[in-house]
């Protein structure tokens, strides 16, 4: 990387952090629009889940099943907190890891499929997760899990690092900071991953799995690793979502969400690590704006999406870097 480009990247990161953690909270305080905390938390969490989908795109698989892992992660955290009395903070990484593990079992057979076959199976997966949540005793069927306590304080050696969320007048504020921090962490991790050797092997697999295995790459293993990381992100996003809503039902994440996670990636740009973030933001607010158009909302939305994919097959971020094909 040249020095000027490095400086540009550092500046971009600084602007991003300042906007997310300083400018937005200040603007919300000034305008009194505290409802935006909730909206923007949702965007951040959906972006995390979409980031996972993006990684499966990165190894050449169209994943329309991320809703399943958001649901599994949400339930895992909810059950650990309510049934077993765990702290939310411990339940969060465990929920993510549980999704990663489960997705390895599921991924082993289905990741052999390519193209539309893989997509179809993942689409069904969301429905399987919903039906499982309906059927299992531990998830409490259609009544779901409700009255989930908000995250408590984090204390280390008697020092309170994070105050309990119940101490805030507006609980959406700490949730916003949590979601934004997690999004920042997850995307920083994704960026590092894609720019490390593992990322280069992923790119090699996407372009030609046979050639990759001819040079000794364990393609089946790395496919599962990518899918596990993807599902981990889905689980983390789902778990925090559930903590905000303080409840979860089998219909909390549906096929609709799975499709949206995928569209967020398309819209933002498959060639860019940060594409899903932008895609989620634009799609979320775009959908809300279209609400004004009443019965035409879906029609206009679909039309615009189709148009965008035709005109900008590499997503919105390709407007910014038209010549750079790589992330």
């Amino acid at each position, binding site marked *: 990387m040249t020095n000027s480009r490095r400086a540009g990247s550092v500046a971009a990161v600084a602007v991003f952090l300042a906007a997310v953690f300083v400018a937005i909270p200040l603007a919300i305080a000034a305008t009194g629009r505290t409802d935006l905390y909730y909206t923007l938390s949702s965007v951040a969490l959906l972006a995390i889940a979409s980031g996972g989908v993006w990684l499966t795109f990165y190894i050449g698989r169209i994943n329309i099943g991320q809703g399943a892992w958001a649901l599994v992660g949400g339930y895992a955290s909810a059950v650990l907190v309510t049934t077993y009395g765990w702290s939310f903070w411990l339940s969060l990484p465990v929920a993510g890891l549980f999704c990663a593990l489960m997705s390895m079992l599921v991924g082993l057979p289905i990741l052999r499929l390519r193209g539309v076959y893989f997509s179809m199976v993942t689409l069904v997966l969301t429905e399987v997760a919903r039906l499982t949540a309906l059927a299992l005793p531990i998830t409490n069927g259609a009544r779901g899990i409700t009255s989930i306590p908000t995250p408590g304080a984090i204390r280390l050696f008697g020092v309170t690092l994070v105050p309990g969320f119940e101490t805030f007048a507006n609980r959406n504020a700490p949730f916003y900071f949590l979601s934004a921090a997690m999004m920042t962490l997850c995307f920083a991790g994704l960026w590092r991953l894609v720019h*490390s050797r*593992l990322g280069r092997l992923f790119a*090699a697999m996407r372009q*030609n799995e046979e050639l990759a*295995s*001819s*040079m*000794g790459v364990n393609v*089946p293993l790395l496919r599962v690793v990518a899918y596990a990381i993807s599902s981990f992100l889905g689980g983390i996003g789902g778990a925090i979502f559930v903590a905000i809503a303080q409840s979860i039902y089998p219909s909390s994440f549906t096929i609709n969400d799975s499709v949206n996670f995928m569209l967020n990636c398309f819209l933002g740009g498959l060639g860019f690590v940060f594409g899903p973030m932008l895609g989620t933001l634009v799609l979320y607010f775009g959908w809300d704006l279209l609400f004004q158009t009443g019965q035409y909302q879906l029609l206009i939305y679909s039309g615009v999406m189709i148009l965008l994919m035709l005109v900008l097959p590499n997503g919105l971020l390709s407007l910014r870097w038209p010549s750079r094909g790589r992330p």
Partner: protein
Amino acid sequence: MTAPILTVRDLTKRYGGLTAVNEVSFDVQEGEILSVIGPNGAGKSTIFKLISSFVKPTRGEVRFRGEVISGLAPHVVARKGVVRTFQETTIFKGMTARDSVIVAHHLRSQASLAGFFFGTVAARRDEDAFARSADEILEFLGLDAVGNELASNLPQGHLRALGIAIGLAADPKILLLDEPFAGMNVDETRQAVERVRAVRDRGVTCLLVEHDMAAVMKISDRIVVINFGVKIAEGTPEAIRADDKVIEAYLGVEDETIGL
């Protein structure tokens, strides 16, 4: 004679009713260049896919230094040192030639994947070593001038060389080259023949499938002839040229094209 580096025994592959490879056996000595020839559809590529374990044999086995490798996963066989290149121009389209060769160094890496994630010292050392080795391989195969070109923009001759470069980067003991001279003109072929010789002189045993008979006769230590999936002859270029069965089954038909 020393123990062969590769032994192929009764190798058979059926696709439904079609027997693509039928009870083929031969040995490969360390450091030789052995060509597998035969008419279109004879089963040559299938033999290579069987040896590199991309395809599982219906019957028979392949041993590498005495160890059975047929039935193992292809990446495991590649790690042992049996590496194939592809007949179809198989490349990483979106990568530059240099990046493709760097990625192909994957096997030699000392640092763990996590090490690469966190950018440890070992990972940096690997990265540097791979880049240097990639440059060396590119130069060796006459690709240094086009290293930063996207692989999808390269002409046929360079693509073939890039395929060999990717194979070499994986540090093979045996390199299986499927039609390495296809799509090359006389001059390019002459250079490519020299390069395959040079690869062998680096200590890599070379197996090749090739239709360019003049090149095959020039480069091979020994030749195996396949017709309809069956081995019909094996021997030095001189012996093959004089073999009645070969002339009848194969050479005689294409008399002019092979220029014998």
